[in-house]
């Protein structure tokens, strides 16, 4: 051990020295922070053009979704300089603006002739503005997204299954038009043997740690006409958040979870949903449109075997909003280079390439193109979904609001505690407390 000690010290010095030397390498690099998922790989590909044009190197910090919000909000709140650019989640915009994490982009847009009219209004509203709808921009819409569904087209097309389904439910086996139809289909597939393997109905979001179960359950809640407030901007939640429709929707989501998900599906989000679908476990799955290009390309379940559909309505047509805008971080030392990237990214040609690589452009030059709907099998559904998107609170206190909802939903849906009404009542209590702390109530 003596020898160990003697070798250890020089080793430390050597490694420290090399670490320091590594840091100072390139000044002309900027770092973009985002989640680790398919579109991020597409963005790496796209950004090579930027480096080629400007000579500015791009570094990336991609964090898996379950840790993304936690890590990145921590980074912002600690005033870190890791990221020069951030593609932050839509709900962060309030906090990003009010706490001074994001650079306000209005002047820059004016100077560079970047017009927000060139981007789909729903995405500008959701990803860029704070306060909501005001012409104060803190991000450029980068990635449009909503929660949608996909199913095993090949199974749905089987005559034997079609016949069995028709006999049981009296209608054709086809992508569901309502949430209740979706549950019927899921029940139909649950536990069924197909090609000698046991299959399950549906993969939905039940994750506890970040935002999973909220993003999943709101798909049902919005379809039943769920509203956060009776009067927008008044924070009067009693009777809205816990309305009979909301209770019904939440009960529905729990039933769907109980009846028709694969075993061990208690803490599942995007990756688990993809996993279940790609391994042939489930007939249907929910997930963000962002993954659809990758799914369509999949060797095992892609191509002819996969079909897509927009979140079915129940009382109303609605989808849960995903997607992000790209922002410049106020703590960065290279804000000018970061702005240069945004300027480059906003160009219609770049936006077109972005869509072709698998990123969901929000630019009207892409979306209003007559060929857009047919450019991909899910493109039309995407436009449909984006028409009816609803988002979670985008308040600066969004994280607190989200954590409460995660807890109340998971306690009720997965951990079997209390009733749906009680869960939503408690949620109102939690949220009331938050808004009181905020001085908004």
């Amino acid at each position: 051990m003596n020898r160990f000690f003697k070798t250890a010290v020089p080793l430390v010095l050597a490694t420290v020295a090399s670490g320091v030397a590594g840091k100072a390498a390139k000044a002309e690099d900027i770092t973009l922070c985002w989640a680790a998922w398919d579109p991020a790989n597409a963005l790496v590909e796209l950004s090579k053009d930027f480096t080629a044009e400007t000579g500015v190197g791009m570094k990336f910090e991609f964090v898996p979704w379950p840790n993304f919000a936690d890590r990145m909000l921590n980074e912002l709140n600690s005033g870190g300089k890791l990221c020069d650019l951030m593609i932050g989640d839509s709900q962060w915009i309030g906090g990003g603006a009010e706490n001074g994490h994001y650079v306000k982009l209005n002047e820059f847009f004016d100077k560079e002739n970047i017009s927000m009219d060139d981007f789909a209004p729903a995405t500008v509203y959701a990803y860029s503005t704070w306060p909501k709808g005001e012409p104060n921009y803190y991000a450029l819409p980068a990635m449009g997204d909503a929660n949608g569904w996909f199913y095993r087209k090949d199974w749905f097309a089987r005559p034997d299954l079609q016949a069995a389904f028709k006999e049981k439910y009296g209608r054709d086996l086809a992508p569901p038009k309502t949430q209740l139809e979706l549950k019927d289909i899921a029940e139909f597939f649950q536990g069924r043997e197909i090609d000698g393997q046991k299959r399950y109905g549906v993969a939905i979001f039940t994750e506890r740690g970040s935002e999973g179960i909220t993003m999943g359950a709101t798909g049902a809640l919005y379809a039943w006409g769920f509203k956060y407030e009776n009067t927008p901007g008044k924070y009067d939640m009693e009777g809205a958040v816990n309305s009979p429709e909301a209770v019904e929707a939440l009960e529905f989501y729990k039933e769907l979870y109980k009846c028709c998900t694969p075993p061990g599906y208690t803490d599942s989000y995007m990756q688990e949903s993809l996993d279940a679908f790609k391994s042939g476990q489930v007939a249907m799955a929910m997930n963000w449109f962002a993954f659809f290009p990758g799914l369509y390309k999949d060797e095992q379940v892609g191509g002819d075997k996969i079909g897509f559909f927009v979140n079915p309505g129940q009382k109303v047509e609605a989808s849960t909003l995903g997607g992000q805008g790209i922002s410049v971080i106020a703590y960065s030392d290279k804000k000018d280079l970061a702005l240069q990237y945004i300027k480059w990214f906003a160009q219609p040609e770049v936006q077109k390439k972005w869509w072709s690589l698998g990123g969901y452009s929000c630019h009207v030059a892409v979306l209003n193109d007559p060929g857009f709907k047919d450019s991909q099998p899910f493109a039309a559904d995407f436009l449909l979904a984006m028409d009816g998107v609803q988002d979670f609170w985008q308040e600066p206190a969004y994280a607190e609001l989200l954590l409460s909802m995660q807890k109340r939903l998971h306690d009720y849906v997965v951990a079997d505690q209390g009733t749906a009404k009680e869960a939503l009542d408690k949620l109102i209590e939690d949220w009331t407390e938050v808004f009181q702390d905020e001085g908004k109530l």
Partner: protein
Amino acid sequence: MSSTTAHSVVEPGRYLRFFAGAVVVVYALVTMIPLVWIFITGFKTPQDSISYPPKVIFEPSLEGYVNLFTTRTRQTPDYMATLPPPETWYDELVRSRQMVIAGPSKFGERFMNSIIIGFGSTFLSVFLGTLAAYAFSRFRIPLADDLLFFILSTRMMPPIAVAIPIFLMYRTVGLSDTHLGMIILYTTVNVSLAVWLLKGFVDEIPREYEEAALIDGYTRFQAFVKVVLPQMATGIAATAIFCLIFAWNEYAFALLLTSGTAQTAPPFIPTIIGEGGLDWPAIGAGVTLFLLPVLVFTILLRKHLLRGITFGAVRK
């Protein structure tokens, strides 16, 4: 526990001894199963790693290790056809999965961070701890017991509780997500262990040596450096390994106070994802590489383990 007489009455009987041995060996084997399993999972293909029933016999593959150190993108067969033939075995392995290597993963960086922060903080805490331990052992310090207890009590705080003000402090002075910040923090946590352990080791060195040196005309400082330090070498090495293991394994502070630049391996390993879910072979590979040094150290340390884990309270 050598008995004074060969036919001691307290020597356990043959059968009892055999029974004891059998139970302990079975326990040891069972306790190793999880570690062995994660080790072999590192050599499986992703398909084999999630097969049912779990596969014990399989064709070993280095895919987990390749995936651990690279990021890869899936490509269409058309695109793959345009590529020049693979240059290395790992290129070939990745291509066989319809993917190409896009670049190195963050694992190497995170591992390096673990090494820099681990060794840096170990060096500092042992340095400070040696000095303080010598002083506590040899000199009369007012309120020494209180001070020593105070030094120890700092370890009773839940790490999250400590992290709240540290987060604010580091944010103010710009130490968030820096190697230096983490080294200072781990040093602070470890120095209490170092002082307690090293004081025990110094206590065991007879003072006569120093006194002889003092009489020979050494100053106190010279006596410390030339007489005491060499005698402490083993104790210092053992303490250093304990500090290193703590810094190496630490998770909560690293999770809360680092994000990209200075993040160590423990918060990173669980986030290794492949295509569709967690990439278990890559995690197996990462866990194996990460745990291996600690396993080696544990074996080296086994004689001092007891002292280390009880802050020197039990010395055998």
